[in-house]
């Protein structure tokens, strides 16, 4: 069985489209997206009398036709940002009113996700190709219900899912980050959440852990060391492990066949942890490149027979 795993596309529409095409491109039997589906940036496009205006990469651009507007929106979406068309007055109000930006962000994220899931229906042959999506620590709670309602995509959080005879369990929570994001919990709480899903697995020899946070100190969790102002220290040359000890302990204790992670975009890699093959394909969503892992699972032997990290 061939599985394609990617993660952390953060609203990049070009990466989402590639993810949907990955099954046919790599001849995969199932595709998994590991979390952090939504973007971090919203780009206002102001509507004026007969034209629109937007700042792209620091340069103010005037858009005179609907085609130019559509092209700008496409560029913004492809980089993982949300284009938000509004009047200059709306933009002024948005900046002033408490909570208004958050509300607009949520509207844009949900609308975008809805559109994405509509695209998925056609690409995944109406659910014929198993596709699993999960939230990550950066994803707002509202996306869970949207994904869960999709007819062709399965929401993974906290569930045991049969994947061609392999047992997949997912968790999008991470250990605390300096950004205080949505799905963060202290290590003890994470350990309890992991145990809750691990206890669902009937056979660890055929288990796949899909945990957003990578195991601490595994080399899959190396991020630039930051100072108190969130500025990389020493020119970004110093990296430090920022993964979860609860995830590491769970892998060491349960020894699943495979453990797939994301969260730390810079830390693309593969690590053998006893019997377990752990990996993080990393993410460069901003470049429009979908990094992922191609995994051949041997149903007879219950092991990962081949693996390859790809930049699709």
């Amino acid at each position: 069985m061939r599985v394609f795993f990617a993660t952390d596309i953060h609203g990049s529409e070009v990466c989402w489209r590639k993810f949907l095409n990955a099954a046919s491109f790599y001849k995969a039997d199932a595709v998994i997206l590991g979390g952090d589906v939504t973007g971090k940036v919203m780009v206002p496009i102001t509507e004026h009398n007969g034209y629109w205006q937007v700042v792209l990469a620091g340069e103010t651009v005037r858009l005179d036709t609907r085609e130019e507007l559509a092209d700008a929106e496409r560029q913004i979406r492809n980089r993982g940002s949300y284009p938000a068309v509004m009047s200059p007055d709306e933009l002024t109000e948005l900046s002033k009113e408490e909570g208004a930006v958050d509300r607009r962000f949520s509207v844009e994220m949900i609308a975008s996700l809805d559109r994405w899931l509509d695209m998925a229906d056609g690409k995944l042959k109406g659910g014929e190709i198993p596709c699993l999506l999960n939230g990550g620590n950066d994803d707002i709670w509202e996306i869970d219900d949207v994904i869960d309602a999709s007819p062709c995509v399965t929401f993974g959080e906290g569930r045991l899912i049969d994947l061609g005879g392999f047992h997949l369990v997912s968790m999008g929570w991470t250990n605390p980050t300096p950004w205080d994001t949505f799905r963060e919990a202290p290590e003890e709480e994470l350990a309890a959440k992991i145990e809750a899903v691990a206890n669902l697995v009937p056979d660890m020899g055929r288990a796949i852990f899909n945990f957003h946070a990578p195991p601490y100190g595994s080399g899959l969790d190396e991020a630039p060391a930051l100072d108190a102002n969130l500025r990389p220290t020493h020119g970004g040359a110093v990296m430090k492990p920022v993964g979860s000890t609860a995830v590491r302990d769970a892998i060491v204790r349960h020894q699943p066949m495979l453990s797939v992670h994301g969260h730390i975009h810079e830390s693309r890699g593969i690590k053998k942890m006893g019997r377990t093959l752990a990996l993080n394909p990393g993410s460069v969503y901003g470049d429009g490149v979908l990094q992922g892992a191609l995994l051949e699972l041997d149903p007879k032997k219950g092991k990962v027979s081949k693996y390859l990290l790809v930049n699709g």
Partner: protein
Amino acid sequence: MATEALGDERPALFLRKATGLVRGWSVRDSMIYAVLSTNFVTLALFEFTFAGPAFPQGQLLTSVVISAILVSFLVVAYTGLIVTIPRAGGDYVWQTRILSSGIGFVFAVTGWWFILWLWAPIYGNILAVQFFEPLWATLGSPSGAAWFGTNNGIFVVTLITIALAGVLVSIGMAGYARIQKWAFYGGLIGFLVIVGLLLFNSHADFIAAFNQEASNLFGVNHAYAATNAAAVKAGFHAPSLGFGPLGPTLLLVPAMMFFILWPNWGASLYGEIRGASDFKRVFRGMFFGLWITTALVVIFFLLMAKTFGWGFYQNANAAYFNGTFPLPVWPYPFMFAGWLVHNTAFQVILILVMSLWFFGWVGTLFLSSTRVIFAAAFDRVLPDRAAEVSEKRKVPFYSLILMLLPAVGLGAIYAYWTTFRQYTLDATLVIAVTYLFTSIAVVVLPWVKRDLWRASPASKVKLLGVPIVPVSGVISIGLLVFCLVEWLSNDNYFVNNTSSLIYMGAMYALAIVIYLIARVVRRRQGIDLSLINKEIPVE
């Protein structure tokens, strides 16, 4: 949800709270990296010893300034790539992404891994002549000092250097980065002391001090005159300091690349939200680093001319180059400057402080090699074990073997085969080839990755409506091709001879063979390496 607005009047974008939204690193940090990489003390002084005598009609000062101007375009080109594809893998990532997997692998492993085997003994030689030799000599053991210049001495110091760099790779950059910063500031203070010494002492003071200390330490009388005579006897006539004929001066440019080509050595960018300011920030770090080094060299040259006598400095290098220098050590200008104070403790401290330029720099010798080896192992081109890190000690054992053992072997060849020791510029040439392909990647980027280029802050940096990044790439290609042609056609660089070419050719052959074997072996295992960088269709 926290929000942040950017822009002058109305917000240009909104950010919500999310992982990884970091601020750009300080320009000062990347500038320090660039100054240490284009190391004025370890690399530049070492190269001047050979370049001046090899091109006696060229003007060192002019060639350094011309080189810095030309390398500034390389800085622009690399800045363009860094802000467009900000990845720690640097050349490997850019070349594999923009050109092809095979090209990226071959030029990354040769330029960032294999050739570092040769840099190890070069580092060792520099440590011997700038640290051990002057230290032993100053402490009253001229024979001990001379030993470090012997074959055995060079080999032992190379082993020390390799061990030091290996340990630093094992313990990681966290602690070393702090040492680096302190080494930089300490080294600058040491240089300021030397500036003071050379500024406030006259030419006559120096001649007297040089003669006195050479007599005290080495028993050589009238060493100043003897040095000048030795150079003349070897047929060398020192040019005056200034702006001389352009032709011979341009021939010095490929030699200057030995130290000035590396302002981009440690450059990478983290953070995902790239704005217009990122280009300036990245550019400034490397550019200021390059020009600080250039300024230090110019100050050094002017002070040499004032206090040592420009002719003497050139003559000392030429005499050493021809094996006729009256003193049994490398003509280390900072040791000679220390002789202006007739106090052993002061002289020793000055040598120790100036050695910070070496110790703040040596840690990066194998750092890039580790990254390339890991990246190639994750791409399944190298065996998986190459990226293994021991559980207990967190030591990348196999990659260390792949770096250190060949370096030891090459260190032995370098130490015991004096002809091979002349191929110093091979170490620059191979990396220049890697830079050449990266420069080609810069030039084709707007066509090969159109959307990526359009969205990059680099595409907005224009002069008279023309984007300067690809243009800088073209100028960089011109510089690198000029250097390559000269290196490969002019005997004075000691690159253009059969065994040197065989050595470099063998490295490229090895890289190609590894890549081809990996393709075949992985195909037999059912793994198609061609998929690694094959783009998934969007529609």
